[in-house]
């Protein structure tokens, strides 16, 4: 009888290239994932804890300030409403006009034997007034006076209308003009 040799060692099957690659990659990926998880988790824990205390202290300051402001609510109310009304007044005054200067100018046109019977002024500076003069010479002087006022840029766009000779010899007419805006300040 011949001797038979039996090979008890099972020959190793060679892994495929994909399996070999996977055997290298997968452990690396798992270790890296684990390390990253640990780093990120503890980093966020540390950040949250340190900022939580700062956040609470800022919130505490906000609460204290709100209480302090709440105690001064009356003053705040008085101030806010006062300022709102003053702002409204400011707007009103900006559009308002003073008429005393223009009326003084018109009143000062009165002369001997020439009088301003009436005057109408509006806030746009449109002026009209009724004049009575006792003779034409005085009327001429009056017109020269108005022209002087125009040269001084107090009046402009002057127009004379409705010149009437009354029964008693007086001359009456209406003057329309535009006043300088400075006369309404």
């Amino acid at each position, binding site marked *: 009888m011949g001797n038979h040799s039996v090979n008890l060692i099972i020959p190793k099957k060679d892994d495929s290239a994909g399996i070999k690659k996977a055997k290298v990659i997968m452990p690396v990926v798992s270790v890296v994932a684990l390390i990253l998880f640990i780093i990120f*988790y503890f980093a966020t824990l540390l950040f949250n804890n340190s900022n939580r205390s700062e956040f609470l202290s800022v919130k505490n300051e906000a609460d204290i300030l709100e209480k302090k402001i709440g105690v001064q609510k009356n003053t705040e109310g008085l101030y806010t409403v006062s300022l709102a009304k003053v702002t409204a007044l400011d707007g009103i005054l900006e559009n308002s006009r003073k008429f005393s200067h223009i009326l003084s100018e018109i009143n000062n046109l009165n002369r001997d034997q020439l009088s301003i019977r009436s005057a109408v002024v509006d806030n746009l500076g449109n002026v009209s007034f009724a004049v009575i003069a006792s003779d034409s010479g005085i009327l001429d002087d009056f017109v020269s006076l108005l022209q002087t006022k125009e040269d001084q840029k107090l009046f402009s766009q002057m127009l004379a209308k409705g010149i009437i000779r009354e029964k008693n010899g007086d001359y009456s007419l209406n003057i329309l003009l535009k006043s300088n805006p400075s006369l309404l300040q």
Partner: protein
Amino acid sequence: MKKKFDYLSIIREYELFVISGVIIAVVILFSLVFLIPSFTQTQQIIDQKSVLSDRVSRLRKKDATLSSLDSDYYKTVFPKINQVLPEDKDFGSLFSTLDTLEKTTGVSIVRTDFQLGVISTNSGRLVRAQNSQAYVVPLSIDAMGSANSLLTFIDALNSLTVRIITIKDLNWVAKSPGIFGLTINGQAYFYPSPLTLGSVDTPLPQLNEKQKSILDTINKIQTVSADEEAAPGQVVVGKRNLFE
């Protein structure tokens, strides 16, 4: 004999894959359960901290402004502001304004016309003044007096010493030597106070120089307090007993 499926040998053969897969699965699970909520909390803290810091800085500014205000000054000046620009149409104060002006300027008020218009102060049909949040009350005034007294009267209307009235146009007539008549078409105003102040961190508006000057002018108004007015018992009256 049926061969049993040998799990152990498969695990032994692929133990590296199994362990790595378990680690990755655990990491994914823990990330979902712990890491992502932690990140969310971090983001919330950052966002809320930024919002809270802005709020605190607004509150600090407001607190500093409020602390610097003289509350006594505003308690004194507020009723005077209401005199100049009341909260409602208050026709009574228009009459008392004209009475005061009669006394102080020497003019005689011959006639006043107010347009009552919409009686309700809260009506939406009220007309606002130009460039202002105040509402208008149209009116016309007929007055008589000397030239100087009428000019003083006209200046006093918007001098911030009495209820403010502005003039749209006027008619000046010579009645007799030294006596003139005046017809004014103008507007009085009122301004209802706001019903709410705004939230606690709403910033306070600041006064500019022109507004400070308006406030100081109004503050000079002399108000007669109830204590200073003569008590009924102090007013001199006639004899109470005809036989004394």
